[in-house]
Every structure is written in structure tokens, then in C-alpha cells.
């Protein structure tokens, strides 16, 4: 072959390679066009509508004060609103735990040394799940008098996003003077040497997690620099502490992240701590250094996980401790407001801070457990079997005694000196005796304010209403600011105690029932709050109650003395109750209670000893009964597991269940044998594909769930369309031609903002108030608010609702109708790596916070979908883990949180029944049954008992091999993010028989067909109530849009294709020519 021919051969090779790669890349790009669009800010399609009547974009829209003169949303006003809110959120959510001799606040101009790695790299958000994104205001900038405005272009202080890398874009973002976002910062004189030293020693530390450990791992290390390293970084580190000695603020932090847990004993060797939430040697050393140089020592606790701070509490040289959680991108300004005294703290702890986290009975069973006969669990699947490990379990035998319900209940029993409560079982601070004061550092709900504080008193008698299936009490609580200089807010927590009968139902000694918060009260001012209590939240679930109709289990109220009290946290509340019962310090209490704050109510049920009627019918008018019998191990193997009982603290204190073997019945459940597709039902009366009506979804905008038009609309759909609606249930949805439901990206994470940038919407492009495409802040990331525990710890329902409204506003701007969030699992243990996503250990606080958030979001047509329903109690083995518990525990802990949120009774009116419209189902099982496949959970409890109608979606790709079972249970959609396909059901299998779902498969299964209709109804109903109705009418259609990346690969294909042909022809010609010459 001559030179000329070789040249063309080389070109042919190159062009062929390019062509092959171009075609391949194009095919892949089209499959993943949605994430590519999200990453690049391009839009592959858009919705267009004829809007001659001007009906679009008006139901939900930004308020006029956020618009520019041209009608478009002013991104700067929007971001200012976010910064101001984030600041308030942290100011109200931070909790002052200790403040000796007026250590705080600090005066303007104070010379302050910031110490601790986390003072320079504060953990401002979680890593995964509910992370923060984009540029932050650092703690240093929030405190330093030389800093007067945001520094969003500083890439050192930018959190990298998963969806889009903002580091490249922050230079364009607007910056803001602190004066314009709530006022000056703290204006302290900050020690520049310590800042420099930490900057040099920070290593790879970031502003977010990760937890960086797994429950089995022995590698956790918070990587706090040693004093030697700091001195090596800055030689005059120690001297500078003497110069900036008005105060030392030491920050200690622990991360939070989806998918990871802290492990028992899971620490790296040599860090000077035995447990991951204990302070390490380096952390203790820097605190000691602060004590020896500064006049005041303040510790900021920067975590959603309960760091063990008992020693700091006792240390007289530590003047103040402020818990700040993970405050979000702008919360540092709120922390600065507290440190400088602009705001008096008003939060209360959303979790118990134990001296040792190992003292919680739940810690006995937490981590990695696999059935001894795991090899016999063989649930086949084509789809990610390795992720969904099927044989993991955890025994939650602590009964209802999680968090403060354990510590305060055991405390009451020690005061009574009964039930072996003082025995050493579960004690971590003594080998001989359990003592509350030793075991608990700071109780749930506890928090201080500045100055003389507030007086809270019950006013008069509560207004009691008991009729039918409602039983409520309204307490008037007068709050008076006792200080003569300091204004501030005060949160009111109302607790209750139901009578405990030995040998009867397990009951906690105290239970938060409701809460509220005052406005800012000036010195001497008062405000009376009415605290509404639903006695449902104090009722106990008796799973052994005989309902007389062949079923068992209902909610009951025992006859006897009920106590209601206000208190600064759960411990103060139980002390008040004990005082009312005649106890005092001389009878074993660790502090005196105030019996004047207690209302005693004698409940004399007329029909017997137990009121089993009032709450036997739910708000949705459905009879309550057991639906989760299989949730407890003893259902399959009686007597195997011992549940903790307060009547026998010592005898029943949990042991670790490490070697459990599933019996034959249980194995069937583990193997997913829940449903067999029927083959001979009469399905002729189930209508699909009807042409009798011609409704489109937008015709049912805002319609009630019972509107008769739904039946006609659903009949118009084909069965395949109904299946497709469920099979592709987020974040993209398929087109449904029969009802003109347009394909689109309609769901996203999370709870602290939406996981999108301002330019991320293709839906609202044509809205008159849309963010303009050339807006400098188009790349602004929206997940910027504080972690969930900070939201809860504000104990301010109005603020929690406002967060929902702000995220709802984000939803309107982004054209996003459904949010996968907020997180609503309860904190079972401190070691759950994902506690930053969830509000609290207490179901009432969780439930009310989620309800408020959801109601706020709904004001902007954003459907909140709290997750993970339910029992996602740890991240270790979360994909398919089987948590075993009694139905009483299930109902009174996590399900109670979801029940409050779903029922949303607070917002019911005579004409409007508010209800949660979305929910995300857990990866986990309940007992050996997948939550997604539990008809008891998804239909009997969620839909029938609680009245849920809406979008219930699996967690990402969960249980795709159990399609029929999932449909049978009542789930309304699969989250198939990353696996979206228009092409059908190839990734789905019907059941354990591995039959791919199809119209033919269900042709003779009436149950499945009816469930498909019900699920479609639920999902479409949610959309009809959402901001999607802003953007659609009967003319709405999706149109394709060319994007630059699509043009690029198409260009490559065309050019390289032509080049292949051309170069081949030239090569042949050259070769022929050469042959001719030869």
C-alpha cells in the first residue's frame, strides 16, 4: 500500500472510530438526557400551551415584592429572602445549653479566638440526602468585624453540588451587604493567626460530611488537627491566644450523611476516643488550650448527632455551650446574632444528649446483622440484587422506650424506687446503679435564653372537648418576659402523662403533646398562647385488645389520673408532674418540680376501665385494628425476643440479637412471596381506554378526590398507561396521551431547599414571572437551609411552616410539583448517620414539623412527600433491612409521626379536609415484609385509617422485581431516577416468579387492575392539587428543543460518517491508482 492510500486508510480508521464513538455517545446521552440537562443547564423539551384566556401561571406565583419592573422574578430579592430566612432559622433553632455568669453574649469589638477545625470549616449541612449546595457564609465571615458582605465568589467556601458544579459559576453570583440581609454581623475582632493556622491545617476538610464510616468500620476520625500541627502551621499560634483573649469559641462537629452510620467502637486507633461521638484527644486538647488562655470559653456543638458533652457541662471553666446543629449556608449569621446578643436564644433540644450514647437501650441492637440462614434467602432479580441485600435484620426490642421516653420513664421509676429502675442494667456511668443525673447531660426539649428568662404559667382550666371520636384539650399558657433589658421569644412545650398500670400497656412517663412559640416579647411583656392538645397523641396502642369482631388492636385511654404540664424540656416536665404527685428532692428527684404548672385530669371512663372507643375510629372514619402482626419476631417464633418493659427494667433490658434464624414462614416473606397473580377473575366490568368522555387532567384542577369526573378520566386511560404512570413515577413521568398528561421532570429532593439551580426548569420558561435565562444568578443552587434538627429545635410551628412556604416558592419557580422530602424518620439512635435529615427522636415534634412544612409548601402547590415510610431506622443495610418490633412500638413511634403529618388535622376546616398528598416509601421492610409490599402499611393504615390520597412512591429503584406485590399493596409509583425508560417494563419483574409485567399478565386479575386504577387516581389527584396545574391546560403539549450537546454529537456523527465514506472511497481510488501504476 502506497503512502497516499495509507493516508486515506488512516483517515478511514479515525473517522470510523469517531463515528462509532459518536453514535454510542449519542445513544447514551439521549438515554440520560434529563441528568445531562440538569448538569449543563440545557432543556431538551418544554411545555407549550395556548393561553388566550390567561389562565396559566396565575394560581401559584411569586409575590409582587419579588418581581422586577419587567415582571420577571428578581433573583437578588429572592436570594436576600433566602439569606434572611436562613439567618432567622439558625437564630431560632440554636439551643443555649449552658451560660454561666453571663458568658454570652459577647460585646461588639470583643477580641475572639476561633478554635477547632470546625470553626474554620463549619459543618453547615449534611453530605447526602439533604445536603447544602453552593457558596456559604462562613462562621468567620459572620463574626469578623472586617467583613461586611457575602463573598460568594470565594471557591474555598463553596459546597460542590451533585447536580451541577457551582465552583465554575459562583463568580457571577450577586453578593449582598449584611446590612441588607438582616443587619451587621457580630463585629468581633477575630484572631487572624488561628484562622490562618486552621486554613493551613484543614487538609481535605469540607463544609459538609461525609460521616466517613460504616457501622462495621473502625476508621472514623474527625481529623481534628493536633496542637503541634497548628503551631507548625503558625509559630505564634499560642501567643495569639493571649492577645485575643476576651473569648475563645471552640467548635466541635460531627457529620451527617445518607448511607452511612457511626459504628459502636467504630473509631480509628489512637484518636483518644472510644466512640465516634466522643471528643477526641485533639479536640479536648484545644479546649484545654482555650481554657488556659481565654477569659471566656464558649463551645459550639456543630452536629445533628449527639456528641457526648457531659464533661463540658460539668467543667466550670467552660462558660457557655451553644448547640447550632448544621445551620445551612447562611445560618452562621443567625449564630452570630446569638453570640453577639442581637437575638436571645429560644430553641430547645430536639434530642436527648446522653452522657454516653451507649446508654440508650436501642444501641444494644443497631448495626450489621444477617440471618444465620441468609444463604436460603434467594429472591431473584435482574435489578441490583447486590444493593438490595435481602437477609439483614435488626431487633428493635426497646419497645416504645426511645430517646427521652426511656430516660425520663426510668427516672420516674427511680424516684418511685420501683421496678428495679435503679439496677445497673443499662447504666454506663456506674457499675452498681443507674442514675439519671449521671446518664443524661441535657434532656430533650431543654434550652436557655439570655437574662432572667421567661415565666410560663397555665392560665385557668383547659377547655376540654370530648365527643365521638375526638378528644382534645386547649390550654392557655401565659408567657412573661422577666428580663428588664432583653427582648426575646420563648417556646412553650406541653407534655402529658397517661396512667401506667403495672403489667399493663407500656407507657412513657412523659410525652410531648404540643408546642408553640411566642412573638418577640419586650422586657416585661406577656403573651398568652393557646396550646391545642389532641389526646390521640397520648393514647396507647393495645395490639392485644380484642375488638369483638374477629380483629385485634386499637388505641386506648386507660381510666385514671392524667397529668399535663409545661416545662423546659421533658425532664423539667416530669419533675413538675412528680412534684404534683408529692415528690421532691428529698425523695430522690434531682431537682424540685413546680406543681403549679401541672393540670391533673381524672379520666373516669363511663363504660369500663379502658376507653377503647374514642380513638377506635380514625379521623378518616375507619375502624382501627392490627395490620402489622408480622412486624414482631415473636409472631413467627413466640418467646424468642424479650421486649423491654418498665415493670422489669433489669430483667427485660435488651440483649443483642446477633444470631437469628428465619423459619419457613418467615423465609417466604423474606423471599418476597407476597402475591400470586390471578388468572381467572372476571375483569370485564373494569373499563380501560373508554372513548365516551374526553377529559384532560387539567379539567380536574383542584377537584376533590371524590369528584365523579375522576372515574371517567381514569376509564379513558389504557391499562398500559396506568402501569406506565406507576412504573415511571419519578423523577420523570411518561406522557399519558389519553388525558393529555405531559411527560416531564416533576420530582426532586429534598427538605432544606430543592436540589436544582435557578436555571433548572424547562416548565416555567414561558411564565411571565420566570427567572430570565441570562440572569446572573441562574446557577444559584437552592438547597441552602438548615438541617432538619435545627428546624425542629426552633419549636416554632410558624417558622416550620414558613420554611415549607419558601421551599414551595422554589417549587413554583422551578415548575416542580412534587418534593421528595422532608425526612420524617425518627432518631432511634444517635449513631444513625442520617439524623441530619430527620427532625427528632420524638414523633410528635417530627410529625408536627412535617405537617407545618407540608402545609406551607402546599400554599405554593408543592406536594411534600415525607420519607421514608417507614422504619428507615438506620443506614446500615438500609436497602432491604428487616426491622422487627411490636405493633405498639410501630404505631407509637414512627407511624405516629407520619400519622400526624398525613392527617394534618390542624388545617382541617368544615369545608376542607387537609391531608398529606405525598409520601416516599422506605427501602426497609417491616418485619420480614417489604414496606412497599405491605398492604397493611400502605393501604390499611396509610390510605384507609389515615385517609391518604396522593403520590406514594418507592425509594430509588426499590423492589422492581416485585411489581405485582407493590401494586397490590397500594404504592402509587416507582422512583426510577437514573433508570427512566420510555421503552417498557424490561427492568421490572412481576413477582418472585420473574414474569415481566404486561397488560396480558393482568388480564384476568381484577385486584391488580383495580389497584392500578386506585394508584393512578391517587397520583393524578396529587398532580391536580399541585403547581403543575399552573402550567397546563387542555392545549398543553411537550415540544422538543435542540440543545448544544445534542447538536455536538449529531454533528460528529454526520461529519465522521461522511468522512468514513469519503476516505474509504479515496483509499480505494488510491489503491486502484497504485495498482495501475504498478
Amino acid at each position, binding site marked *: *500500500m502506497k503512502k497516499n492510500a495509507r493516508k486515506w486508510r488512516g483517515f478511514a480508521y479515525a473517522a470510523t472510530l469517531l463515528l462509532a*464513538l459518536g453514535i454510542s*455517545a449519542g445513544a447514551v446521552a439521549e438515554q*440520560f438526557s434529563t441528568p445531562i440537562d440538569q448538569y449543563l443547564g440545557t432543556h431538551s423539551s418544554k411545555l407549550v400551551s395556548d393561553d388566550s384566556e390567561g389562565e396559566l401561571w396565575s394560581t401559584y406565583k411569586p409575590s409582587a415584592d419579588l418581581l422586577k419592573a419587567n415582571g420577571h422574578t428578581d433573583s437578588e430579592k429572592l436570594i436576600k429572602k433566602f439569606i434572611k430566612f436562613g439567618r432567622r432559622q439558625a437564630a431560632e433553632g440554636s439551643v443555649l445549653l449552658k451560660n454561666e455568669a453571663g458568658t454570652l453574649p459577647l460585646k461588639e469589638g470583643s477580641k475572639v479566638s476561633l478554635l477547632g477545625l470546625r470553626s474554620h470549616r463549619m459543618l453547615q449541612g449534611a453530605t447526602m440526602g439533604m445536603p447544602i449546595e453552593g457558596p456559604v457564609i462562613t462562621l468567620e465571615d459572620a463574626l469578623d468585624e472586617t467583613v461586611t458582605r457575602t463573598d460568594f465568589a470565594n471557591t474555598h467556601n463553596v459546597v460542590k453540588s*451533585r447536580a451541577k458544579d457551582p465552583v465554575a459559576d459562583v463568580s457571577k453570583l450577586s453578593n449582598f451587604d449584611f446590612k441588607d440581609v438582616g443587619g451587621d454581623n457580630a463585629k468581633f475582632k477575630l484572631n487572624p493567626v488561628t484562622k490562618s493556622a486552621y486554613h493551613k491545617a484543614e487538609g481535605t476538610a469540607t463544609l459538609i460530611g461525609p460521616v466517613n464510616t460504616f457501622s462495621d468500620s473502625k476508621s472514623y476520625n474527625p481529623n481534628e488537627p493536633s496542637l503541634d500541627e497548628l503551631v507548625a502551621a503558625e509559630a505564634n499560634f499560642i501567643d495569639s491566644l493571649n492577645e485575643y483573649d476576651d473569648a475563645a469559641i471552640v467548635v466541635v462537629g460531627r457529620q451527617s450523611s445518607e*448511607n*452511612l452510620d457511626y459504628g459502636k467502637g467504630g473509631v480509628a486507633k489512637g484518636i483518644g476516643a472510644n466512640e465516634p461521638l466522643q471528643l477526641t484527644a485533639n479536640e479536648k486538647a484545644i479546649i484545654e488550650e482555650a481554657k488556659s488562655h481565654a477569659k471566656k470559653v464558649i463551645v459550639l456543638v456543630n452536629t445533628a448527632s449527639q456528641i457526648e458533652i457531659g464533661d463540658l457541662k460539668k467543667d466550670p471553666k467552660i462558660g457557655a455551650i451553644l448547640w447550632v446543629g448544621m445551620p445551612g449556608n447562611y445560618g452562621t449569621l443567625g449564630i452570630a446574632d446569638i453570640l453577639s446578643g442581637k437575638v436571645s436564644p429560644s430553641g430547645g433540644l430536639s434530642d436527648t444528649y446522653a452522657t454516653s450514647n451507649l446508654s440508650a437501650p436501642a444501641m444494644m441492637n443497631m448495626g450489621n446483622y444477617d440471618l444465620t440462614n441468609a444463604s436460603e434467602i434467594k429472591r431473584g432479580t435482574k435489578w441490583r*440484587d447486590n*444493593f438490595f441485600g435481602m437477609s439483614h435484620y435488626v431487633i428493635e426490642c426497646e419497645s416504645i422506650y426511645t430517646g427521652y421516653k426511656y430516660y425520663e420513664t426510668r427516672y420516674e421509676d427511680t424516684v418511685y424506687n420501683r421496678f428495679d429502675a435503679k439496677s445497673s442494667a443499662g447504666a454506663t456511668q456506674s457499675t452498681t446503679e443507674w442514675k439519671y443525673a449521671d446518664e443524661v447531660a441535657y434532656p430533650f426539649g431543654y434550652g436557655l435564653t439570655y437574662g432572667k428568662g421567661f415565666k410560663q404559667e397555665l392560665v385557668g382550666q383547659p377547655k376540654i372537648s370530648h365527643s365521638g371520636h375526638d378528644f382534645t384539650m386547649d390550654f392557655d399558657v401565659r408567657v412573661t418576659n422577666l428580663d428588664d433589658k432583653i427582648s426575646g421569644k420563648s417556646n412553650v412545650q406541653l407534655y402529658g402523662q397517661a396512667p401506667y398500670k403495672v403489667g399493663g400497656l407500656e407507657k412513657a412517663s412523659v410525652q410531648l403533646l404540643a408546642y408553640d412559640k411566642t412573638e418577640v416579647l419586650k422586657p416585661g411583656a406577656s403573651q398568652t398562647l393557646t396550646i391545642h392538645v389532641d389526646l390521640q397523641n397520648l393514647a396507647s396502642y393495645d395490639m392485644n385488645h380484642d375488638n369483638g369482631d374477629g380483629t385485634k388492636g386499637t388505641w386506648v385511654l386507660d381510666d385514671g389520673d392524667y397529668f399535663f404540664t409545661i416545662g423546659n424540656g421533658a425532664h423539667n416536665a416530669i419533675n413538675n408532674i412528680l412534684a404534683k404527685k408529692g415528690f421532691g428532692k428529698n425523695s430522690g428527684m434531682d431537682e424540685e418540680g413546680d406543681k403549679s404548672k401541672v393540670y391533673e385530669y381524672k379520666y373516669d371512663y363511663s363504660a369500663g376501665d379502658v376507653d377503647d372507643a374514642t380513638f377506635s375510629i380514625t379521623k378518616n372514619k375507619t375502624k382501627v385494628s392490627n395490620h402489622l402482626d408480622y412486624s414482631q419476631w415473636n409472631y413467627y417464633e413466640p418467646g424468642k425476643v424479650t421486649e423491654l418493659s418498665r415493670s422489669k427494667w433489669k430483667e427485660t433490658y435488651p440483649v443483642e440479637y446477633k444470631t437469628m434464624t428465619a423459619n419457613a414462614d418467615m423465609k417466604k416473606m423474606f423471599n418476597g412471596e407476597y402475591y400470586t397473580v390471578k388468572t381467572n377473575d372476571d375483569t370485564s366490568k373494569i373499563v380501560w381506554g373508554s372513548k365516551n368522555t374526553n377529559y384532560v387532567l387539567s379539567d380536574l384542577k383542584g377537584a376533590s378526590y371524590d369528584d365523579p369526573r375522576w372515574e371517567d378520566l381514569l376509564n379513558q386511560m389504557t391499562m398500559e398507561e396506568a402501569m406506565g404512570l406507576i412504573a415511571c413515577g419519578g423523577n420523570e413521568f411518561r406522557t399519558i396521551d389519553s388525558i393529555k398528561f405531559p411527560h416531564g421532570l416533576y420530582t426532586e429532593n429534598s427538605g432544606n431547599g430543592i436540589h436544582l439551580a435557578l436555571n433548572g426548569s424547562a416548565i416555567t420558561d414561558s411564565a411571565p414571572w420566570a427567572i430570565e435565562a441570562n440572569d446572573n444568578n441562574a446557577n444559584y443552587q437552592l438547597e441552602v437551609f438548615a438541617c432538619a434538627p435545627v428546624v425542629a429545635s426552633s419549636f416554632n410551628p410558624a417558622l416550620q411552616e414558613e420554611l415549607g412556604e419558601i421551599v414551595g416558592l422554589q417549587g413554583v419557580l422551578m415548575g416542580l410539583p412534587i418534593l421528595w422530602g422532608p425526612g420524617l424518620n425518627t432518631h432511634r439512635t444517635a449513631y444513625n448517620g442520617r439524623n441530619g435529615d430527620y427532625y427528632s427522636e420524638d414523633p410528635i415534634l417530627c410529625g408536627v414539623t412535617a405537617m407545618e412544612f407540608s402545609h406551607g409548601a402546599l400554599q405554593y402547590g408543592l406536594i411534600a412527600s415525607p420519607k421514608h415510610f417507614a422504619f428507615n431506622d438506620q443506614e446500615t443495610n438500609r*436497602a432491604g433491612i428487616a426491622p422487627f418490633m411490636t405493633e405498639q412500638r410501630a404505631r407509637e413511634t414512627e407511624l405516629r409521626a407520619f400519622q400526624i403529618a398525613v392527617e394534618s388535622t390542624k388545617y382541617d376546616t368544615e369545608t376542607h379536609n387537609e391531608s398529606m398528598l405525598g409520601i416516599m416509601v422506605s427501602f426497609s421492610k417491616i418485619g420480614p415484609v417489604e414496606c412497599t409490599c405491605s398492604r397493611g402499611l400502605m393501604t390499611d393504615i396509610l390510605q384507609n385509617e389515615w385517609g391518604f390520597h396522593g403520590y406514594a412512591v418507592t425509594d430509588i429503584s426499590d423492589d422492581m422485581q416485585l411489581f405485582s406485590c407493590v401494586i397490590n399493596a397500594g404504592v402509587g409509583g416507582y422512583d426510577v431516577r437514573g433508570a427512566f425508560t420510555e421503552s417498557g417494563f424490561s427492568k421490572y419483574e412481576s413477582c418472585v416468579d420473574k414474569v415481566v409485567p404486561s397488560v396480558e399478565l393482568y388480564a384476568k386479575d381484577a385486584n391488580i387492575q383495580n389497584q392500578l386504577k386506585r394508584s393512578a387516581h391517587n397520583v393524578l389527584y396529587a398532580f391536580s392539587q399541585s403547581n403543575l396545574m399552573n402550567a397546563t391546560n387542555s392545549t398543553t403539549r411537550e415540544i422538543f428543543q435542540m440543545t448544544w450537546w445534542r447538536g455536538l454529537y449529531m454533528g460528529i456523527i454526520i461529519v465522521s460518517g461522511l468522512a468514513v465514506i469519503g476516505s474509504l472511497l479515496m483509499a480505494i481510488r488510491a489503491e486502484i491508482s497504485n495498482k495501475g501504476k504498478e
Partner: protein
Amino acid sequence: MINIFKKLNIINYLEILAALVALAGYILLLVTNSIQGYAIGESPALLVTFDTLGVIAIVAALTLKVMNKPNWISSLLILVALITFGFNFGYVLYNRVALAANLLTFDGNNVLGWLALKTSIAEIVLFVISSILFTVTGFFKTELSK
């Protein structure tokens, strides 16, 4: 045999290197495809068939050179191999993106998943390197010296 080596020029050695790299990619393809639960895509056998064809084409192309058969046949076979390797690139990418997304987000502790992803990436990279090497050699004289 020694005579054959005497006939090889630097470009021929590059071709041999390209073939060995492709062979290594092929072996990794078989490894990643055999990790339990991580066979690539809906039709792993189709992918293996394609890549087997590609590798056979390369071996055949080099063998024909040694046998002094017309060079255009070898060139066509290498062209076939380039097409199959390009298909491999798209197919594997298409079917591993979701796995990568999972591992980089919520499934980071999945050891087998990481093994599958890493071997897939290595396999793609090797095939692409092989393709580039063959493309480069295409511009030069690849016939054996007489």
C-alpha cells in the same frame, strides 16, 4: 519465527501492542460480565459476541499480514474491530451509568458494584486505547518487510 520478527517494523510492533491491549480489554470484559448480579445490560451475550468478533478480526488481520495476504483485507478487518469496539463503548457506558450514579451517591459501600464499575471502565479504556493505536498505525506502512 525469527524471520518474522526481522520483518517487523515499529508500526507492526504498535499493531501488536494494540492487539494485546484489546485482548486485555476483552479479558476484563469477561471479568466484569461475570461478576454476580452485574452482567452488563439486558443482553450481555450480545456484547461478548460483538467483542469476540472484534478480537477475532484483529487476530485474523495480523495473521493475514504474516501470511502476506492482500493488505486491504487486514485493513477491512481492523475497521470491523473498530466498529465493534465503538459499540462496546456505548453499550457498556449505557449500562453502567446508573451503577456509577448509585455508587457515587447512596450505594458507596457496595464492594462488588465498585469492582464491576472499575473493571468496566478499565475495559472501555483499554478498547479505546487499542482503537487509537490501530488508527495511528493506519497512517503508516503496516506491511511486513520483504
